[in-house]
């Protein structure tokens, strides 16, 4: 099983979520985060004093899927979250050792 983690622009969340539904991903976890890569921050002005905010709001999506699904998931997220502009985000894939469904105790791919 693979954990696919994607950092995307917040307004792309609905599009990515739909794309994942369409390929059969049944569950995802979403967190509001802030961060930066190469996208520059912006300058804010508060009562005459300027300050630079590096951190931009992003959304982190995490989905654990069967290993053979991960290519499809990467493609779906990439297409849905792409705007062509800097700051579109990144996708990371890592291994998952074990998955358990709390309600029934199922383990492994059955628990996904």
């Amino acid at each position, binding site marked *: 099983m693979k954990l696919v983690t994607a950092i995307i*622009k917040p307004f792309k969340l609905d599009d990515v979520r739909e794309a994942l539904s369409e390929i059969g991903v049944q569950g995802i976890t979403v967190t509001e985060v802030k961060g930066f890569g190469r996208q520059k921050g912006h300058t*804010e002005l508060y009562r005459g004093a300027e*300050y630079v*905010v*590096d951190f931009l709001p992003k959304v982190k999506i995490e989905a654990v899927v069967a290993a053979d699904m991960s290519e499809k998931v990467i493609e779906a997220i990439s297409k849905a979250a792409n705007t062509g502009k800097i700051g579109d985000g990144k996708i990371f894939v890592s291994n998952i050792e074990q998955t358990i469904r709390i309600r029934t105790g199922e383990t492994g791919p059955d628990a996904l």
Partner: protein
Amino acid sequence: MDGITELSYALDTFYFLVTGALVMWMAAGFSMLEAGLVRAKNTAEILTKNISLFAVACIMYMLMGYSIMYPGDAAVSAWWPGFGGILGKADNTAAEVLASGGDIYYSNLSDFFFQVVFVATAMSIVSGAVAERMKLWAFLLFAVVMTGFIYPMQGYWKWGGGALDALGFLDFAGSGVVHLCGGTAALAGVLLLGARKGKYGADGSIHPIPGANMPLATLGTFILWLGWFGFNGGSELVVSNVAEANNVALVFVNTNMAAAGGVIAAMATARLLFGKTDLTMALNGALAGLVAITAEPLTPTPLLATIIGAIGGVIVVFAIIGIDKLKIDDPVGAISVHGVVGMWGLLAVVLSNEESTLIAQLTGLGVIFAWTLVTSLITWGIIKMVLGIRVSEEEEYEGVDLGECGLEAYPEFVGSKGSGI
């Protein structure tokens, strides 16, 4: 005897000032209501809009609006008041007051103060409907025209003694002059502005965009409710004798009852339609009740006032849903609460006031609506052509707080370079 007359003058002047101050407090109510119903990334901007429109309204009304609306004997005709110029009437002396035999019973400036907070209220109705995607300075430019000209003209036709007044059109505290006028100007703005990105799907679906802060929205509604006692109560215009004092008390009570009726009716309607008790509908219901009674809070019994408010509460729920179905995006329901229910308020006058006629009420309704819609569309249209009224798509996604104000309403995680924090 002279002492009593002077005391009456002072009391009625004081009454105008205090009720005017209560109406000014409604600006805080609108600010909180709107701040609660927009998203966090757009909150600072709408607060900026609210405080600046209030300032613009006060200044424009002083510069030209007041004398357009109340030219007195200098009016040119029943439809054209003429441009009277800047506020500057000298106030009444004690001798003039005593000699007038009761005709002069309040300070001229107290009348200006009481009226200026009304025009600011009308203008603030617009800010909610165009929230989250309008350029701040384009909005303020419209405010200049609305408070300096559009509102005062239709205000003259009724309260200034112009043509609508002569026709027998009745509007005690402004369901038409203030609320319908504001709601219509808002409608014109929204029609030219367009909906927020992502609000309406290509397949006809309607996506909710929930507000960021329900406590603020509720606080705002209660503040407006309180301010409305000044709005309707002060519009009785006199308090200094037994009959008038009783009238004022009845107006306060009816205003309160109408709000209560509006809340329950809207809550019940929303519960029946959606299966859940929507807080935002309850809040809009309170305001709808208040708008509904504003055209005539004196002649109904408290029971009738409750019913009039309740009908307003039912209407507002359907209006909000209907206007959304028409793809007219109104984040706070301003067009429904003030425009649609304002119309109901004007018509409800015939239920309790024998001097009113349906014809006169419909005429006033039609004239105010048509005048405001046409002049607003023209004004918004010109501003759109010259300046543009909508922020860029990028700015709409990021939030207008950053684009227009350069700061955030709920900043956190700032971690700035060089500030040492």
